[in-house]
């Protein structure tokens, strides 16, 4: 059982408090949706959870131990992250790109023949295996996103932090990705925390939701009860009346 927890976490940018006194626990087997308006601190929260930035106040603990106390390599074996924007400068093939996820495990292709199978399985799960031997810089935006996700699957952490995993993806691949990560949580007992802008997908595929408000406050709980028309209208400061959603009211 893995627990990633925050205690009185406060995150701020100069001149703006993004998150105030958040105490929350993300458990194994849970699939979380992080929702909030642009600039509400979703990315900043994920960066803090991955120990990519320091908090203004409070602590982030992975199995009772502060994330800042983990050696980098060990933390990468526990927490993996899809960044919202990742570099597009890579000269090798898609296969080579995906295999770089093995770095976190300390294994390398020559040393471990299983690694080849791991990489292939990840590519096939993200439906990018047919492009494995193409050059990375020949891929479309959506294909690159799937290759990034495949690299993350190869990294095989206990906790997946996904910052807008559906970026550039068509409907078919959005569903495949959502299904894959929901299964990782439900079947394999991983923790999945993803920033989503599509509330419908969030309510259908995630069992927990965390809503970040512009004033630094937040709410969290079961996705089914939290993702409602009224709550979304309040979260995004907009009227939902003119739209037809198949969501509970």
């Amino acid at each position, binding site marked *: 059982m893995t627990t990633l927890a925050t205690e009185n976490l406060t995150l701020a940018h100069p001149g703006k408090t993004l998150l105030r006194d958040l105490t929350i626990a993300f458990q194994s087997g849970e699939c979380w949706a992080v929702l909030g308006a642009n600039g509400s601190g979703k990315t900043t929260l994920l960066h803090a959870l*991955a120990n*990519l930035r320091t908090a203004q106040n409070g602590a982030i603990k992975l199995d009772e131990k502060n994330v800042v106390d983990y050696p*980098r*390599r*060990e*933390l*990468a*074996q526990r*927490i*993996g*992250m899809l*960044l919202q924007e*990742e*570099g597009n*400068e*890579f*000269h*090798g*093939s898609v296969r*080579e790109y995906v295999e*770089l*996820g093995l*770095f*976190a495990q300390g294994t*390398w292709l020559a040393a471990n023949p299983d690694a080849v199978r791991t990489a292939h399985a990840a590519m096939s799960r993200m439906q990018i295996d047919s492009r494995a031997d193409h050059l990375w810089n020949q891929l479309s935006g959506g294909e690159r996103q799937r290759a990034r996700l495949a690299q993350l699957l190869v*990294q095989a952490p206990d906790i997946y932090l996904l910052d807008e995993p559906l970026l550039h993806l068509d409907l078919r691949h959005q569903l495949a990705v959502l299904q894959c990560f929901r299964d990782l949580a439900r079947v394999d007992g991983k923790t999945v925390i993803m920033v989503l802008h599509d509330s419908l997908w969030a309510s259908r595929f995630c069992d927990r939701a965390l809503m970040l408000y512009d004033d630094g406050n937040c709410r969290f709980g079961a996705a089914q009860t939290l993702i409602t028309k009224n709550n979304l209208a309040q979260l995004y400061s907009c009227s939902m009346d003119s739209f037809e959603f198949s969501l509970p009211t």
Partner: protein
Amino acid sequence: MQRPAVAVALIILTAVSLWFGLSVGSVKLTNSEVWQALIGQGSEVHRQIVYELRAPRVFAAFACGGLLAMAGTLLQVLLRNPLADPYILGISGGAAVGALGALSLGLAALSINIGALLGALLAILLVFALGWRGRGIGPERMLLAGVVLSAGFAAIISLFLVLAPAAQLHGMLFWLMGDFSRVVSANATTIVLAIVTVASILLGRSLDVLSLGETKATTLGLSARPLQIAIFFLAALAATAVVVTAGPIGFVGLLVPHALRLLGITRHRALIVCSIFAGGTFLVWADLLARSIAAPLQLPVGAITALLGVPLLLVLLIRR
């Protein structure tokens, strides 16, 4: 090793080039004469030509070419910029100011080398201090610092050239364009080549990961900061060794990594190894041309590298 055919071709080409470098010159030696001289037989004159005149120059050219290509590869990862080359950090400018300062004072060859070394070290320290931003090396900051420092050094170099008496001008211009004619031993450069090669190969896997960007590399478990510092000082050591040995030689550090990537060598461990052979061979040929096409007049090797490199890179780009 990726693309073993490319690696094998490069190794064969290197052996042929080094052999050719030892046999070609104002006194043409046959293959058997070179072989006899190498194993310590044959005439005394041939042994002197091979061991004292040609070998230091050919091996220094090879080592410098390998160092420049490796430094280019390292800096393109560190600065995340395809235009990065070993001299983008102002190292050649700093070395040139030091060397020209020594030349203008009429000092001996050793002092010129010491002047170049001190100038290069000053540039390295300045650009490192300016490029450091709290948590690590800021690629854009470091690039800008290098460009600004280079501009400053270029201004000082111009002043040296304008104010120098006519008798010193030729030597200064030759120094500025790169020249192997003053090389008396390749030992120091070869030792630096060995150090930079071993260290870079050990870092190969980490370089692959860092090429994804500092933040992504960190999430994959890489400690980016010590790696960045190691890359910076390895590249600086390589560039300094070259500039002290032969002056600034442009284009090798830019051309070779790109050419190898276009040939399908993309993993850094393979790229580093192939860089040594490709960069070394390229500079051996450039030096051969520099000392033979207008013999007995010697041309600056830096001009030849650019003349050869521009069409070569263009052909590769068009074919790709």
